[in-house]
């Protein structure tokens, strides 16, 4: 059973601020969804290999060659705030 504290903890991990009413609504929603998901517990999967991906791929490497890429200027066009060729964020260290 998921508690409101679990939800608040997950929200902190996910870096989402939740208002109190949001947290309690989410707790109810997630409780219902997890209750449904718990039907997987009726299956015995002890000896089953997990599938995280359907293709038999391991590491995919590309040839190491220089090719055209976006310039700093082109990339920074999308920035919320920039300064001296960098993305600017609020103060990190007081």
């Amino acid at each position, binding site marked *: 059973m998921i508690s409101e504290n679990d939800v608040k903890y997950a929200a902190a991990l996910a870096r989402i601020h939740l208002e109190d009413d949001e947290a309690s609504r989410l707790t109810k929603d997630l409780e219902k969804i997890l209750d449904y998901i718990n039907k997987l517990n009726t299956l015995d999967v002890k000896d089953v290999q*997990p599938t995280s991906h359907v293709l038999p*791929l391991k590491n995919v490497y590309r040839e190491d060659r220089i090719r055209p890429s976006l310039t700093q200027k082109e990339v920074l066009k999308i920035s919320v705030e920039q300064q001296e060729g960098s993305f600017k964020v609020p103060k990190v260290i007081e």
Partner: protein
Amino acid sequence: MELNRQTAHELLDLLKNKKTTPEAILDSVHKQIQKSDKDVKAYVRLNQNKVDPKTANSRSVPIPIGIKDNMCILDEETTCSSRILKGFKAPYDATVIEKLKKSGAILIGNTNMDEFAMGSSTENSCYGATHNPWKLDCVPGGSSGGSAAAVAASEAIWAIGSDTGGSIRQPASFCGVVGLKPTYGRVSRYGLIAFASSLDQIGPITKDVTDSALLLNVIAGYDERDSTSVNAPVPDYRQALKNNVKGLKIGIPKEYFVQGLHPEVKNAVMAAIEALKNKGATFKKVSLPHTEYGIATYYITATSEASSNLARYDGVQYGIRELPKKTRKSPLLDMYDETRHVGFGAEVKRRIMLGTYSLSSGYYDAYYLKGLKVRTLIKNDFDKLFSEFDALIGPTSPTTAFKIGDKVNDPLSMYLSDIYTVSANLSGIPAISVPCGFSKERLPIGLQIMAKPFAEEMLFRIAYTYEQNTDWHKQSVNL
């Protein structure tokens, strides 16, 4: 003749015989958008396209196309119908967009979707809901609901969607058009804004099967910029359009015909099977025993992957940035928390939370790992059947389009409308939805055909044969 009501292959014939021009086609589509999109709301923004008559003739496929709002188009806004990406203009083209541009396609605009492709109704959009052209108080399905509605309303000749758990096929079914989810790895996802990377796949939404094959010809192929794209030869899919299913062995999964399937949908699908039987295909009842675990498995995998993929929307680089009025933790942490609080809608938050929870310490084995193991069982079910059968057939969705607002407050019942579609994503196989009838309320019904990996040609052959012997695809809405 209203050009916008024609299929792409019909228009290409007209162009070849100089009976029309790319300008005239584009004009007819724009007129339709002006006339009906205030009611359908398929588009979230339109591009100001001008066809250059000098280059038009050398273009191979100068056909107006709608693009789901989760594919990057150079210097155009792309938002995934989310507030958090408002104002984001991609600095590059997605591979699919690059291929379309090269083919001469005219990108008319971005189509509405459930925020970050999370939903089955196109109601979870920061731009508001899209309406089903067949019945405006119903949903078009989702998450590619804008693309499906645009094609159904003849506001686009064809469109591109993406499918993570049914997001091309279910809206195609609800809107009476053809929707294909290709094999995982068939179409490059470079520049597709990721939702669940082990499941996402881009595909065509079209008025008929021929157009589906034509559009797949344009977008399929290996791309080294997408490490999950598969380096397998791309056949000319038009060659697969044969009106012949003689001798094909098709399985009917009994788990797709259980309680919850609407009788009208069941009858239409059974009639479709009968029609294919008359053309010489043989059918046998089969079993996909883990079908009932599909939705649970899907929601664990998809949300876990999403919680990681969506971590990048934090206000640092692009999109929006929000700060709370009062400091809570520190200026930087507050920016993350508040940007995501304001920027994400309710369903996206719900899924990020579910994914974060099932990946978190103490719950990983019980949820995420268990989900991956059941995924193996689901995939094995399909592998086993495809060693004996050419294809599997059943309904795309258990019901026809539901009313707008009916399921928004009940996430679980919304999730269950994808019960027949999620398995194809979990197994990586291709699947197509084609129109196979109407309910008494005159809402379209979709038939789903599934085949083994890279057997898109088999899907086209069966779907094409069905289409040639029925006329559901010729029925259209007049808005």
